[in-house]
């Protein structure tokens, strides 16, 4: 299995910004993603996007 325990934790946080903030305050490396639903959550468009991978 991957050597997760042997490397410094570096986090990409998607969703609740507080989770990123607390990590940042603790000195953990983190990037927050200002996530929003892909294609505004429109299922029809999402299926088109999946078709155009």
């Amino acid at each position, binding site marked *: *299995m*991957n050597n*997760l*325990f042997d*490397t*410094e*934790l*570096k*986090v*990409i*946080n*998607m*969703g*609740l910004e*507080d*989770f*990123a903030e*607390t*990590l940042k305050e*603790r000195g*953990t*490396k983190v*990037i*927050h*993603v*200002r*996530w*929003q*639903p*892909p294609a505004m*959550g429109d299922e029809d468009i*999402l299926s088109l996007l999946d078709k155009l991978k």
Partner: protein
Amino acid sequence: MALKSYIAKNTFRDSVYLMRLSNTVRNFEDVIEAEVIIGTDHNKKFLRSGGLWSEEIEQEAGANDLIIAVEAENEEKAEKAIQKALDELNKEAARDNLQNEFVPRTFETAYKYMPDANLALLSIPGRYVEREANQILDKGLHLMIFSDNVPLEAEVSLKKKAQGKGLLVMGPDCGTAIINGVPLAFANEVRRGRIGIVAAAGTGLQEVSTLIHNYGEGISQGIGTGGRDVKAEVGGITMLQGLELLAEDNDTEVIVIISKPPDEEVLEKVLDQAGKIDKPVVVTFLGGDPAKIKAAGCEPALTLKEAAQLAVKLAGGEEVSGSAEIVSIDAGLLKQTKNNLNQNQRYLRALYSGGTLAYEALLLMENMKGKIYTNLSFKDAENIEDVYKSRENTVIDYGEDEFTQGRLHPMIDPSLRNTRIVEEAKDPETAVIMLDLVLGYNAHPDPAGSVIEAIREAREVVEKEKRQIVFVTTVCGTDEDIQKRSDQVEKLKKENVLVFPSNADAVSFVVRLLSS
């Protein structure tokens, strides 16, 4: 000695950048002299005077072209240096100082800024989790999925995919984890140490890890799996991976497994694997059969407190007083408290914010007088019809869906529960109101301060009716937490609220109080 040149047509770079690049190329191994420069006539003359000149440069390079000229020991080495210079030239700029203050909109971009990220923490609506998680796993990151409402099939497919890549998927519905000493989402600040935990029960992990800290030991890793991991459909993939990781981990000397009883086939797989690990494994299947655990060569623990105590003992730490014993109750306190209640006051109203703690409470209520109603599914308790209306003994988990739809979790926003405290006080049959206060990152900044206001209001109600109510609490946290456990305990004690060191202690006290 060999001289080689390369003309990059129509390539513009700032002169300072080119001076820096020239210097870099000069410092390549085996390079004697080098220039990377724009092909103006002036520059060409300069190259000629320095001896870095070729027919190609003279004929081909114009004022809009970039010249790379290298002198090296031999042709091959010069060629290599030019290739390296081109790589350097076309390299996308170093990422570190590029983000500015920009907040990426997508994982893709965040990953560009942090290509060595090793864990993604997802707290997005459940229906989008699979889509995002797939691309995250494709990039080789471990995952912690805080989101709930992720379809079961998605969980299975993500976990299988991750397993194939040697990656861990913690969750969905994983509220807490501690990886490499870093508390993630709702987690407590605990000492690093020798005890590793795999938990399919969120507040279970919080309770055990904080107790271990409070007993003087520490946590190597705290892996959350999400509650559904131990269902037959998922097959305990994450739990088994977690066990494997902790078995291999040099910093882990004792392993603790925490879960509600897994589905039968998962239970067998877990115990089978746990039994083969040459480290002591403490197993708490809340309500599970200890005989099976023992048979597998593991150490059963009936409660979270007992799991913590056993783990500390096995890790060779100082023995915790009354270690394997669940109940250690001050008879004087019991008597004194009992005297405060009138004969109509017979029932417990337990209002929990931590789901596992509520479940553990139900387990310990075998000897309660009267029926027990709850909004959790528990074999020996009645299903409560109206979650807002208590009957006899009632145990309510405020973290359940009916309370969290469209509002914050009670660990962050206790207002709904606070209102209920006052309501319960109005009921003349209420003897004890029991509360858990969960500290840690992302929880309410001062849960004691908040609950005290409700308690004061409740007391005003009962004092008018010449009654008293017993408030029993447990504070899940450590002194390292931002809310500092000892401060929180102090505040509660000042208000004459009973505070117990663990959930099990608190429940046991109440059972004794109301059944004697």
